[in-house]
């Protein structure tokens, strides 16, 4: 049964991804994109990686998409339709995407994926320990770098929002 669920999810994701780039109404594209992201969360649930699925829902569903909807709300009127791009631009975009797909498929098919036999789901405690360990295979350095980056971004946003009167 898991196979069928996977195929249903995968095909709906592909369909919504195509719809997202083809739709000429901006808000609808955003919603199709949301469905694609929720589909990815569904696949994470399917392989029992609940933590990443919930992260996917909060960060992409609740964060990125809501932010996008906000910006659409501010700039876009309900009756506006996006103009079609020029033919030359469309051809270039098609070639670039084809090259991208080629690179991805090449990497995926040449990599020998090992089959893991355990069905234990990853607990948040494991993830937390890995994230803060400074031993072999620990992630404390990237974790700290990202937190510094986030802090810088927040301060930058405040400075921009405040304008001249700092």
């Amino acid at each position, binding site marked *: *049964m898991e196979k069928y669920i996977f195929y249903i999810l995968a095909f709906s994701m592909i369909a919504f991804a195509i719809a997202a780039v083809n739709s000429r*109404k901006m*808000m*609808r594209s955003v*919603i199709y994109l*949301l469905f694609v992201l*929720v589909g990815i969360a569904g696949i994470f649930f399917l392989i029992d990686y*609940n*933590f990443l699925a*919930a*992260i996917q*829902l*909060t960060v992409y*569903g*609740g*964060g990125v*998409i*809501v932010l996008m*909807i*906000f910006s*659409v*709300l501010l700039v876009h009127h*309900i*009756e506006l339709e996006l103009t079609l791009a020029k033919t030359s631009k469309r051809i270039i975009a098609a070639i670039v995407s084809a090259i991208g797909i080629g690179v991805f498929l090449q990497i995926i098919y040449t990599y020998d994926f090992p089959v893991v036999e355990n069905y234990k*789901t990853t*607990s*948040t405690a494991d993830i937390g320990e890995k994230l803060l360990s400074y031993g072999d295979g620990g992630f404390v350095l990237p974790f700290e770098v990202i937190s510094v980056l986030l802090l810088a971004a927040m301060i930058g946003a405040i400075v921009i929002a405040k304008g001249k009167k700092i």
Partner: protein
Amino acid sequence: MTKSIHQWLLSFMSETATSITEMVLIALVYLAIFAVAGLYLVLLERRVAAWFQLRIGPNRVGFQGLLQTMADALKLVSKELTGTDRADKFLYNLAPYFVIISALMALSVFPFTQELQAFDINIGIFFLIAISSIGVIGILLGGWSSNNKFSLIGAMRSGVQTISYELSVGLSLLTMILLTGSLQLSEIVEVQKNGWLIVQGHIPAIIAFMIYMIAGTAETNRAPFDMVEAESELGAGFHTEYSGMKFAYFFLAEFINMFIISAIATTVFFGAWLSPFGITESIPWLGVFWFLGKTLLLVLLMMWFRWTFPRLRVDQLLTLEWKYLLPINLVNIVLMALIVWLNLTIQL
């Protein structure tokens, strides 16, 4: 009981068909709970409102008005579905489902008793927070796609409010997670056999509970934080253009969300299905009674808020969240961490 049903289904179906039927059955049961809870919370709200305002309230249809909401639901089902002419029809029709599906999904993880829990996921609390962040998309979409100024303003306010207060809900729950050391709801209940968490964590737990209830009320867009649908300024806010069953979806979801916020508080602070001092420990099925009892008390508290406090302005709302609740919350987490570290918790 679930085992006997399982055996009975297996007797005339294959393995896969059985599991699918069971899933459908469970979904139907939860849908029924959802509808009944929603309907009767509406009635409760109306009776409580009447009580606070020294009125009588609906008491004509059936005994003490118990069938009133049934009649209302029938009316809503039979009503014509109107909509604005130049709305974005697809998104307009989609929006109510976002709200109601996210509410229904959240309902599935609660431990009503030790056995009665549909989906004991190992990240329980986090899953609830993730799901509730999806629900706001429905409100934003509904407001935008109705092509109506009031709806749009309501949706914008709702977005600002929900995104801000989600932070406080998350952080106050995180404070309690420090005590339990697990996100799984069944394990959170297990920890509370040595005393409910609000007792175990004493001072920081009480602060966290207060912050949680304030932020939770704001999350569900209820008064005093109901700028989203402020009747006196915006008509009906984001659902101005909705009618009939689609409006009922928003309405039901609001009440179910209130129930969910209270149920989370019950699970995390008040020991879910555990009875006070273990008085009914020998009768496990009474857990439902305790769970619903505590939840309804908290629902009553939220209704009490509604009829006690006047509505806030938008700037007051944001000041409350970002200048008061958030700093208090951060200090509170550190305090809780110290208490857990120094073993100062109260164990009964």
